[in-house]
């Protein structure tokens, strides 16, 4: 059953059109990757789902349209969007960041239980709860953003360029945790990545965006075998 469905979605920033008709489907339980070069519209697609940008077309989450929902409502419906650049509250402590993750949907009582669950995936955070999050390393901040997104038990996690600026080992760890979350928390994941190799390894299905619409789609194996994809995005 399709958790997220986009059909012929157009989006624009003021007068400039960024998406010219994107159609894609994310099935429950899948990890789906969005690939493409800079400016292809990957980030815009996520923002269209969240409602951060003007969009037209059909966007359905759990069969219900998202078109009238702003980001606040999308969050309450179970969509967690970790934006480009992580979007942590750098002046707040690690713990306060996690609390903010619970803001919309978790009550005070449940907060302890949910945060414990999430900290289970990031045990190192337990000792750093009081630390100001702006002083964490890039990788730690990305983990915190992920943890914050997970506190509210989202159904869909949207990650925008999680590997940006991070060392390869850290990225590996990050995607290992994402895979774990996908398996253990029934979390559906839509991840935007410029690093095609990485994304294809981590996902079941992928869409390649070009100039605002989907150029190719397929399973990771299919795309890895596809000559065009290999030449333009995988480098061999």
């Amino acid at each position, binding site marked *: 059953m399709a958790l997220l469905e986009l059909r012929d979605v157009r989006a624009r920033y003021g007068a400039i059109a960024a998406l010219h008709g994107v159609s894609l489907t994310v099935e429950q339980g899948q990890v789906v990757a969005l690939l493409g070069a800079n400016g292809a519209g990957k980030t815009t697609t996520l923002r269209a789902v969240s409602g*951060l940008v003007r969009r037209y077309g059909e966007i359905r989450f759990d069969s219900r349209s998202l078109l009238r929902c*702003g980001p*606040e409502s999308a969050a309450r419906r179970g969509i967690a969007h970790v934006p480009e650049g992580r979007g942590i509250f750098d002046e*707040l402590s690690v713990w*306060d960041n996690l609390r903010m993750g619970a803001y*919309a949907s978790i009550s005070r009582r449940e907060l302890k239980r949910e945060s414990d669950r999430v900290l289970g995936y990031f045990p190192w955070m337990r000792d750093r709860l009081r630390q100001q999050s702006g002083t964490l390393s890039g990788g730690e901040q990305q983990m915190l953003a992920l943890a914050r997104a997970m506190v509210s038990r989202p159904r869909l996690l949207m990650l925008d360029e999680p590997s940006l600026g991070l060392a390869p080992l850290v990225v590996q760890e990050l995607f290992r945790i994402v895979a774990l979350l996908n398996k253990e928390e029934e979390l559906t994941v839509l991840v935007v990545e410029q690093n095609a190799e990485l994304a294809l390894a981590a996902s079941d299905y992928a869409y390649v965006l070009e100039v605002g619409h989907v150029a190719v789609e397929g399973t990771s194996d299919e795309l890895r075998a596809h000559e065009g994809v290999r030449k333009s995005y995988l480098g061999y």
Partner: protein
Amino acid sequence: MLAFQSAEFVQQIVSGLATGSIFASLALALVLIYRSTNVVNFAQGEMAMFTTYVAWALMDRGLSYWPAFVLTLLIAFAGGATLERTIIRPFERKPPLAIVIVTIGLLITFNGAAGWIWGAEVKPFDSPFPNTTWEIGDVAISSQDVGVFCVCIVTVLALWAFFNLTSLGLAMRATAINPTASRLVGVRVGWMLALGWGLAAVLGAVAGMMAAPTVFLDPNMMLVVLIYAFAAAVLGGIDSPVGAVVGGLTLGVVLNLIGRYVEFIGPELRLPTALLILLAVLLIRPQGLFGHAVVRRV
């Protein structure tokens, strides 16, 4: 020459703290609005003045002081939040100087409206504190000063508690830090902004009502206080709430001491002197005492 008596010195400090706490309240209001909506609200003082007139009107109709005080705070809150939603919000994405002109326009409008509705003649304003002095050894401290200081500080502390101990307060802080990320976790950012203006209006109302007994009620009463509040906010760091409070108290005390002990600065030159001191501090530390140094990442 300085006629220095330690008893009088303490008295000057106490009364400086009282005036300073009024500056601190208004300065905190300015910082609150600046942090949450990135707007310098030139009309903050006039809004405070206007709500003080509202309090006066309520008391004129027979309400006793503290009920009028509380009711005025509620009205101020509602007024501030409404102002943000209707007049300030539309300018979020417009050129920054436009909102500067709008707040200046609000300043002029509130000033004129107060004079038009209630008349421009100076009115007395009741103080809830008795007109007595306490004697502690040699030192005579006016209960008016103590009362003003306590009310302002209690208000500031209540706000501190709100921001640091409640979820809503946390959400407001998060909104000021990163509005987009806040939306993505479900915070209704629009309401946070309105809330910020409402709380700032409450702070202003407290400042106005505490100042009125001493400076008397007239449409121009808060103009000079606003200038001092700005100076305090900038001194403390325009994005630092702690700075605003410390800045306000410091400024109050320093002004009092200078006015009393430095002979050639008469009453007319108090304001330029305060501003000069402020500028001197800024040249050494441009971000203010507690502000964040702007680090430019290239």
